[in-house]
């Protein structure tokens, strides 16, 4: 299995995400922000970091990069996408996930190990993780408080889109202790904690985070629709290209920023 890891200017945990993919038995494929090309990967990770220096708003500029013009329609068509920390922020800015990530309650960057409860074990990134399981994983961010209006939060809970919660209360003021959510189809997941930093007890608090990466590898037998192979003509994936055109228009308007 080939899993793309996008590097934006200012991405920092891209090498770590790639290492986690490798530990899970898949092949990491570097994707470059400026290339409108997903290189035919089976899934994509948007890693942590400070894309574009967090200027304007976290993730707000990365969301308009060329690679996102390919990724957004592919994700809407079912490509599994995992956004970690800054990646989660980018997915919200791209409207692939609802809500937004705001300044931590303490108004300071916070790096602590947290315990997470899995509440949805049906996404491609959590398949096989027993619901209710406690996972020890680090969080490290300045803008990690998930917010959404009450109706959206209710809907996320009702539809099972809350993927993981902070088991001991959110350290950053996240609404309803939400640590990660997915889209309605479940293929796009955003996590504020960093599972890629919990793949080996030597370099992290546990190896509990590896489960997110083995899940996608293990689940790759019933294939999720792969991203458009660059060798294949665009017309073969009509839905994808239609969505891409929409994304292009959005991108064009965004470039006026």
């Amino acid at each position, binding site marked *: 299995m080939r899993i793309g890891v996008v590097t934006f*200017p*200012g991405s*920092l*945990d891209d*090498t*770590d995400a790639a*290492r986690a993919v490798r530990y899970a038995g898949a092949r990491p494929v570097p994707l470059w922000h*400026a290339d409108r090309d997903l290189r035919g990967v089976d899934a994509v990770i948007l890693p*942590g*970091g*400070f894309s*574009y*220096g*967090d*200027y304007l708003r976290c993730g707000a500029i990365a969301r308009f990069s060329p690679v996102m013009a390919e990724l957004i329609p592919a994700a809407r068509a079912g490509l599994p996408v995992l956004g970690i920390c800054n990646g989660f922020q980018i997915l919200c800015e791209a409207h692939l996930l609802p809500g937004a990530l705001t300044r931590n309650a303490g108004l*300071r*960057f*916070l*790096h*602590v190990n947290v315990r997470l409860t899995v509440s949805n074990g049906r996404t491609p990134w959590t398949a096989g993780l027993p619901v209710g399981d406690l996972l020890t994983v*680090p969080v*490290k961010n*300045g803008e990690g408080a998930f917010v959404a209006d009450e109706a959206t939060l209710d809907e996320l809970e009702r539809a099972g889109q809350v993927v993981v919660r902070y088991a001991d209360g959110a350290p950053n003021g996240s609404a309803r202790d939400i640590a990660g959510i997915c889209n309605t189809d479940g293929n796009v997941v955003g996590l504020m904690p*960093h599972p*890629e*930093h919990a793949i080996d007890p*030597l*370099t*992290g608090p546990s190896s509990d985070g590896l489960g997110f990466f083995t899940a996608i590898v293990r689940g790759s037998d019933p294939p999720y629709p792969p991203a458009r192979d660059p060798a294949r003509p665009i017309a073969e994936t009509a839905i994808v290209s239609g969505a891409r055109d929409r994304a292009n228009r959005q991108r064009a308007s965004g470039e006026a920023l």
Partner: protein
Amino acid sequence: MSGEDTVEVAAATPEVQQPFKELGLTTDEYQKVRDILGRRPTAAELALYSVMWSEHCSYKSSKVHLRNLAPNADQARYLLAGIGANAGVVDIGQGYAVTFKIESHNHPSFVEPHQGAATGIGGIVRDILAMGARPVAVMDALRFGPADAHDTARVLPGVVSGISFYGNCLGLPNIGGELAFDPSYAGNPLVNALCVGVMRHDDLKAAVATGTGNKVILFGSRTGPDGVGGASVLASATFGGAEQDSTAGDGGGRAAKRPSVQVGDPFMEKLLVECCLELFAADLVEGIQDLGAAGVACATTELSAGGDGGMFVDMDAIPLRDPSLTPAEILMSESQERMMAVVKPERVAAFMDICRRWDVEATVIGEVTGDGMLTMTWRGGTVVKIPPRTAADGPVYQRPFARPDSLDALLTAGPEGLVRPAGGQALRETVLTLLGSPGLADKRWVTQQYDSLVRGNTVLAMPEDSGLVRVAEETGLGIALATDGNGRYCTLDPCQGTQLALAEAYRNVAMTGAVPVAVTNCLNFGSPEDPGVMWQLAEAVRGLAEGCQALGIPVTGGNVSLYNQTGATAIHPTPVIGVLGVHDDVRRRLRAGFTADGAEVVLLGTTRDEFGGSAWAEVAHQHLGGRPPAVDLDAERRLAALIVAAASGSVLASAHDLSDGGLAIALAEACLHGGHGCAVALPGDAFTALFSESAGRALVSVAVGREKEFAALCAEHDVPATVLGITAGDALTVENAFQIPLTELESTWSGTLPAIFG
């Protein structure tokens, strides 16, 4: 004066009064510049000499002493590049080399704590980058006034947020450092930042401009008006007390108009790092220099002075953020996130391609020439024409030094007369008082603001004895780093105090199982114009030189920060010593905490009645006097060798160095870090056993079943070992004295800093 002040104008107008004093030059130094040039300097040249000859850039007061640090052949056996390069380079085996350096950003961090500390990280990272290495981790050694002092509430949170902001956004793990409080730093905090980088042997880069016709490229951020005069005026002068809102003059001598503290952009620095590493990998760079203190002035003079020819710079080509800058200001600007490279003409296009890929602005601003002169033009006139070595080498001063008379009184007023706690209850209270004191309490209020995990190779970080970073995933090769300093010991005896700091950092690195191999240092002292301070500096350097020889490891680089004082009062002399160790397999690293019940607890080394400068004397009695603990570097070597051998054979379950607060604090920390209590019996006098700060000691727990093997190793290495007891339960129990539940230790230890800083 402005751009019209060309070399020709200067030659024709020798009588013009120049603001050399405002720029930090003495009358003698100014005259020397005139003698070198055979005319008065232009405004731009005056600016250039003033920053290059500043204490901060030229080391003019410390140079005569620093020469003693040059390593001998034995010490230098693992060195690929030594002092003089931007940072020393150490061979760590398997084709890898490591470069590391520590640098001060004390004065900017007092004036503007957030940006001052942030740009301190940025500057040291570019130093490491300029050697051709990928920066892999940072550390910071911080010293402030009393934790509850009014101004500490401004300075400390600002400094920490600056380091957090810059280091986290740059993507470098912060793996450790120090946090200390003392009234002597109230008006002059110490912010020392360390960076370590890793490269392959053949990646080593030099800061030289060679090859006539090669292009000089300035890349990174544009040059703006920030930090003008930072090196000459801010970092090389004393805070008076009232002038804390310091602003520097500019080259033209007009009224001060902008802050002399630089503003950092870690995002640009991240792009610059990745861009440079790609440029190195593509072999497009002949020579490279970071722009730090003294900006373009320093980079151009050092590159050309280190090379074989001269350099021509077209100052009109330098991209500016503020078009009103004068040539003098352009030369002195300390705008951050800039680098200068020397590139063969046929490789310029490829160089520019990589810069474009990373959105890094790059401009050819000149070329290497064969005339031996550094020449700069601006708007059609020649504004600089100097022999670059005269600016790069700078003056050398033999400043008078003398042992301060006041020292005798300090040494005589020893800790012997201080009332000592007696009985279990009093000892228990003393343990808790020390554990909850700001200097010994839990540092998580600070370290939780730092990313220690990014890049995925951090094996140990704070609160462990030293940071440990994996270099090679396949083999487990890694590097350990610790910094230590103790201004109180150094006030009592700067030579011995420096050796104690060296010994502690050496010991901390060895506690992980790493072999200590190299030393860096940041020498923080008061004004060199005070003979007493110069004596402290000379003694500290002597201590460091002799100590490193005794330990058989070289000093690979360092930094001197002088004028750390408020008015006439200098800080405690505070050499901060960093030691680098090599770990052959980080999977066998040792941690400080007790990891399991049932392990034998052993104290290594010899405990004497030593309380001069101790944490107990400070916390319980606000006392500083007497002799600091004795140093036995041979014993330190044996102890380190023992731990390394034991770690390599997996004979130990934990290892923790004894330092401030002695065995009491080491026991409490081992319990807290590992989450397991212990029951111990103390040999001899309980107070001395608990709180003495005798050097060369460690607290270990032995892997179950390996006790005899470890005892044999101790005998083999001639290290005294005292079995204290066993790890067990959820309390720290000292037989016939007291018991403290882990929950009480934890709340005492962790409550202090949040209660003060929110």
